[in-house]
């Protein structure tokens, strides 16, 4: 039985409109499924708001599907994610919840480089515009914390992005869990979610301890460390990262969380000395004994590198950086490393970022310079999400464990994994030289 506050009861009785009433009833069902007994107010929500069609909907890459082009906001969102809600009654997301949209299937600014059609692109633009009419800030990013969507310590949030759950819980000290598109959509309408899981302080302590004895100097080290930790976790585990590691920055952390998320169901990771709730090992464990302990070495990291990187050197014709979406700082790093060198003719090299970072980098003439050097700067997606972006590629070169892992399941071509610098070098030479990362 769910205990409601007087305000929530009035909402359930329909006093604040049919949309909130229907959404709240569904959130109460969700609470029963999870085993929660009450609800919490949600003040930050991050969810997909565009067309949610998938690459699998277009197996031959032909986007001219009249059935999909005829679909609008309510088909992709309201009817799909909140069945039973009359679209005519849904005019706004909850007024006290800041809602930003997640990635979608198109670039924000263009359809040509991504090999889409103008009709397909404009259909998605209209869907996003209809979301904006309901109070959504169009950030279109998997890394909303780069665009000012920032729940603070103790604030309750919902999101449809698994790496964002980890970042917001582990680094910001906010409280939330992911769920998925439908429950997040309903939570953003009624401004409530089940009080459960990582909302509760008693669940926010370490369970599995990882002693870091591997390299942690580079972003790639943290990417592989994320995979190594994730693969060793039990359900609902909270890993504690300790040992003699190099202090990670924002870029390394968001990369680490992406790999950790894709290899597990983990939603909170306590990094000793970095996470606000883990300034010491004792603080991270909260008086509990470890369920299990692991030591991560370079030898272990190498096994994950081996898992996702094609074994033989060869030509590379699609290269990408940006998982999660690149920060403005990463754009500067790429610009510095390129330093005027040009992408080889016939090679397609793109960097995915978000609209906010793009706007700043544009003012710093980084976007124009990179374009002049043959790099395409894309927003709002990635190779797994932006339909047709890598259509026709004979091989891929990526700097993300998650993207390599996901692409492996979708394609049969060679997939190379390495650092951002290796991706850039391959874009310039058109060739990927395979080198073992750790000896």
């Amino acid at each position, binding site marked *: 039985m769910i205990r409601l506050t007087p305000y929530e009861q009035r909402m359930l009785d329909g006093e604040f409109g049919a949309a909130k009433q229907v959404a709240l009833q*569904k959130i109460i*069902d*969700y609470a*029963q*499924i*999870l*085993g929660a007994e009450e609800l919490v107010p949600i003040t930050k929500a991050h969810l997909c708001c565009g067309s*949610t069609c*998938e690459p*699998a909907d277009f197996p031959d890459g032909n986007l001219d599907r009249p059935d999909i082009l005829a679909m609008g906001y309510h088909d992709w969102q309201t009817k*799909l994610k909140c069945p039973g809600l009359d679209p005519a009654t849904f005019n706004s997301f909850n007024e006290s919840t800041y809602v930003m949209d997640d990635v979608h299937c198109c670039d924000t600014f263009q359809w040509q480089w991504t090999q889409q059609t103008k009709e397909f692109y404009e259909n998605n633009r209209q869907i996003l515009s209809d979301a904006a009419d309901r109070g959504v800030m169009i950030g279109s990013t998997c890394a909303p914390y780069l665009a000012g969507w920032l729940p603070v310590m103790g604030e309750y949030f919902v*999101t*449809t*992005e*698994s790496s964002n*759950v980890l970042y917001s819980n582990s680094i910001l000290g906010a409280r939330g*869990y*992911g*769920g*998925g*598109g*439908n*429950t997040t959509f309903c939570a953003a309408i009624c401004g409530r979610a089940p009080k*459960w*899981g990582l909302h509760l302080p008693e669940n926010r302590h370490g369970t599995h301890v990882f002693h870091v004895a591997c390299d942690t100097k580079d972003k790639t080290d943290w990417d592989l460390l994320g995979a190594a930790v994730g693969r060793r976790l*039990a*359900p*609902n585990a909270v890993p504690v990262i300790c040992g003699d590691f190099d202090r990670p920055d924002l870029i390394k952390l968001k990369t680490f969380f992406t790999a950790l*998320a*894709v*290899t*597990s*169901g983990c*939603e909170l990771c306590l990094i000793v000395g970095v996470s606000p709730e883990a300034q010491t090992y004792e603080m991270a464990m909260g008086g509990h004994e470890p369920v299990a302990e692991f030591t991560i070495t370079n030898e272990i990291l190498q096994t994950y590198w081996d898992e996702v990187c094609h074994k033989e050197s060869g030509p590379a014709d699609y290269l990408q950086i940006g998982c999660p979406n690149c920060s403005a700082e990463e754009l500067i790093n790429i610009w510095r490393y390129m330093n005027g060198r040009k992408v080889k003719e016939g090679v397609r090299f793109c960097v995915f970022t978000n609209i906010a970072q793009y706007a700043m980098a544009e003012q710093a003439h980084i976007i124009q310079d990179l374009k002049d050097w043959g790099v395409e700067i894309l927003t709002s997606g990635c190779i*797994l999400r932006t339909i047709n972006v890598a259509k026709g590629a004979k091989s891929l070169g990526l700097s993300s464990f998650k993207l390599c*892992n*996901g692409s*492996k*399941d*979708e394609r049969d071509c060679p997939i190379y994994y390495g650092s951002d610098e290796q991706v850039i070098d391959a874009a310039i030479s058109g060739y990927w030289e395979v080198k073992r990362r750790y000896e």
Partner: protein
Amino acid sequence: MSKNKIIRGRPAWGPVVEGYAFVCPDSIVGWNGADVKTGVVTEKDNVHYGDSFAGKIIVLPCSRGSLGWSDMFRNSEYNGVGPSGYVFTTMDSKCGTAIFNTRRPCVADFPADCDPCVEIHDGDYIRLDGINGTVEILVPAEDK
């Protein structure tokens, strides 16, 4: 699990369903781990790669990977190829959303000494009671 043995968890959603168990001890990766038009697992390293969970009772430790995990089961359900019931060793938010989307019977949150992914074998014919929180093996796979 031997015939007629019953394991108990938390009743997450009812009612009751019977069917063949589809056990994935490492779960299935979210977003693109299955073809939602056929229910076939497409994750290449999965123990059930190439098999369909359509109409079966899926047994998983938890979710894994992208928050598109629940969409995978929502879309499978809408296409008529979703599992008929769900057993989760431990409920998590993505598992909860999958049940929210499909409204299929579900039992979850088993005690620490009971792992459904070990107790239930692939191909066992089982009865999942989402009202009382039990899973009963009716015909062990080895007896078929």
